[in-house]
């Protein structure tokens, strides 16, 4: 483990999608999926882990930061 990270995961079952170094990168990954029509708002969230791998918190994309879709699912 060694370093803290931000895991994009499916909101219900916490199935992981991607691992990021920063909160901003993780949020951007979700925003991009929504923008491209690959995800619905609320379908994914972010799990922050500390340098020991323990979950610090889980949070969603703030409503104000949810983009409008531009793609086709």
């Amino acid at each position, binding site marked *: 483990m060694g370093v803290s990270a931000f895991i994009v995961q499916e909101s219900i*079952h916490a199935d*992981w999608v991607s691992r990021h170094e920063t909160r901003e990168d993780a949020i951007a990954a979700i925003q991009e999926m929504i923008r491209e029509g690959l995800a619905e708002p609320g379908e994914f969230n972010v*799990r922050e882990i500390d340098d020991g791998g323990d979950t610090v918190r*889980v949070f969603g994309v703030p409503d104000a930061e949810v983009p409008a879709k531009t793609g086709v699912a």
Partner: protein
Amino acid sequence: MTQLPSPDAHGLAETATIAVPVPPDGLTLYRLLEHQTPSEHDFEPKLSRNQAKLRGVPELFRGSISHWLERTQAVRASERSICFVVQLELPPDSLLRVAMTEQLGRGHVDVWAHPQELLGAVVDVVRDRKRP
């Protein structure tokens, strides 16, 4: 405690994946559920091949789902204030394959299996309240 091999113990990169059969003594794992009653849907990988590619999920992991070695680890992975966690007792000598993937969190285990097989391994469901 787990008998699953870790990449670190074998001198491999943290991102390496060592998928193995369930150990001879079996394996206890925990997973978050959508509702209190588990269904095959809870154990079904969700991504199509194209969705995985577009979302940056390696093809290897398109067919795996997330589990945890401890119930508290599963609870902490949920955003819900109240969540449902299922306990599974995975048997050896099955088609199941498991891998420690702790770069995604302490106690995180990826599992490859038929959803019916996982549903059949359910022994308990706990309704848990997330603590701050």
